[in-house]
């Protein structure tokens, strides 16, 4: 639960982000805008993950699968638009498209359906099993996409241009950054409403004491599944944006390493705060870039940093920023 005192922090953060793009141009560093766009997109996926991780205490280690499913939806639709063919042959044929208003919702729906299938099975279990099973299903989806020879298999698929938005030039990097930022703010507000609503309270209650919530008559499994599907849908949107940002999709997007990185973003920023993961995502993106510019063996530093964060900095950047460090989930 967010106390009133910290309410202004997210908005200050969003304003700072919005101001960062013109500043980057002023300092003659337009590449920084692309970097921030990437951070904002990953932040989107991370706040979705925080819903299930921070509020529902479900440690999902397969989140990259949903990001990848969203990205491939956009990629495959764009591929068919270019080829002038349908996604499925026959009566149920769906034509390819470059239109964001069709491709992005399609990405969200596909990722949500995938999350529903994986969640329905995984949520039958708890604890260690849940972690291993979500990781395993994530790997399964990874192999599925590597075997799609038509869409590039291991090599992936190049998008020739970004999805088209009516009245907005999405090809311009700064404009696209603001599109991503606007979507991040929108999803943030919606998720904030969801976690403050009875839905979020049931989710938190079940994370604290599942038996009590059951005894109160709440269908805990169903609440968790809905949360899991929402997180998957948000990841799907993030995937759609990521495909547009990189104008490239490949199975590497679904690699389990990215699932781990998203968990890191949530923890680094502050679990169960929704805004914390945004900080975490941007901080990790910048940190990776900084370390990578310094040495090609940057992971040898990132690994121990993670261990230290886990061992000593338990409330993340958000806890440090609010000076309280009291978060919902421990």
């Amino acid at each position, binding site marked *: 639960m967010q106390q009133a005192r910290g309410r202004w922090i997210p908005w200050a953060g969003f304003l700072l982000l919005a101001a960062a793009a013109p500043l980057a141009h002023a300092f003659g560093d337009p590449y920084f805008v692309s970097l921030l766009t990437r951070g904002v997109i990953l932040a989107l996926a991370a706040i979705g993950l925080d819903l299930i*991780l921070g509020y529902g205490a479900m440690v999902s280690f397969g989140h990259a699968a949903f990001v990848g499913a969203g990205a491939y939806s956009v990629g495959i639709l764009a591929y068919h638009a270019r080829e002038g063919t349908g996604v499925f042959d026959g009566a149920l044929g769906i034509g390819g498209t470059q239109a964001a208003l069709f491709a992005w919702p399609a990405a969200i729906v596909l990722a949500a359906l995938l999350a529903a299938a994986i969640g329905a099975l995984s949520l039958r279990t*708890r604890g260690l099993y849940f972690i291993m099973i979500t990781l395993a*299903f994530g790997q399964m989806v990874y192999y599925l996409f590597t075997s799609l020879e038509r869409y590039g298999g291991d090599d992936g698929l190049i998008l020739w241009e970004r999805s088209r938005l009516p009245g907005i030039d999405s090809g311009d990097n700064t404009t696209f950054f603001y599109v991503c930022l606007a979507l991040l703010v929108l999803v943030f507000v919606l998720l904030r409403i969801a976690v403050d609503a009875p839905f979020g309270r049931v989710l938190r209650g079940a994370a604290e004491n599942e038996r009590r919530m059951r005894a109160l008559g709440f269908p805990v499994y169903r609440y968790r599944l809905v949360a899991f599907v929402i997180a998957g849908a948000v990841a799907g949107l993030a995937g759609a944006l990521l495909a547009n940002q990189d104008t490239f999709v490949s199975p590497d997007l679904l690699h389990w390493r990215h699932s781990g990185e998203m968990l890191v973003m949530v923890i680094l920023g502050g679990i169960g705060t929704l805004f914390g993961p945004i900080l975490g995502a941007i901080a990790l993106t910048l940190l990776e870039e900084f370390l990578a510019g310094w040495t090609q063996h940057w*992971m040898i530093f990132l690994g*121990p940093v993670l261990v230290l964060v886990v061992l000593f900095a338990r409330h993340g950047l958000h806890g440090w920023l609010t000076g309280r460090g009291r978060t919902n989930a421990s």
Partner: protein
Amino acid sequence: MPMRNSAPCRSRTADADPDAAAARPQGRHRHLMLLFLEQLLNGVQLGIMLFLLASGLTLVFGIMGLINLAHGSLYMLGAFVCASAVAASGSFTLGVLAAIAAAGAAGMVIESAILRHLYRRGHLDQVLATFGLILFFNEAVRIVWGPRPLFVDVPAALGGTVEIVADAPYPVYRLAIIGTGLAIAVGLWWLVQRTRLGMLIRAGAADREMLSALGVDSRRLYAGVFALGALLAGLAGALAGPLFAVEVGMGENILILTFVVIVIGGIGSVRGALAGSLLVGIVDTLGRAYLPTILRLVAEPATADGVGAALASMLIYLVMAAVLVWRPSGLFPGHAAS
């Protein structure tokens, strides 16, 4: 890509003399049977490799309640150390011993420096810290051994093939792996069921709190169990050298397969780990070998090969899903599953 190990072996017999085999209907039938036997053995051999990893990991899960993603890193370390030691000394035995020692030492260091502090923490903290360890180990190996994969020759004493039944040559090295794995399975069974240490292990898997309440030095027990798992992971890595490319990232692919094994077998159960390993090994190998062929019966060859290959790589996960629906806590449920 993991475990594409069936191909080289299959081609050896499949391409031996297809015309002659096809000429005689009975000979062809026998030929297919021998091919199947060979694939089955390949599956068992993969299963044994998985068992070496899964048995240690499942005990660590069951007794300490610790999820250790870095188990695959110990396997990778074992493989690299073995490759280097073999290259330096020319002796595969020395390589295996060096691998076991290196993995055991690395395991003891990370247990006492980091993981020990995580036993009482939530699984999320454990996942993140050991994820950090994976990044560290992968990069450290890349710095020490370079980015290119290493290859290890099959030791001369175990080279060549042997005929298990007439006309069915099978590589001695793979048989040796199966033998080693079965011997270790028996040894583990003896350790867990017949020794005092095993009694503590079983008690720990059943009720961790009670064990420490009874005054057992859990710190030493945990360190011992972890070291045992690390040794087995190092051994598995050394044995994998002559079969797969020794490369950075080899640990994670097999780690995820090992998770599937443990989910199927049940956390904390060595018996479950053996059953799950063999099931996953055999299903994965047979699926890759036969699914495209089976699908050719109902679809066009090109489609069948594509879909068959995709389905084969997903098969074990589908088996895992089926087991989950049927028995959510695995075939041989352990006790400390949370």
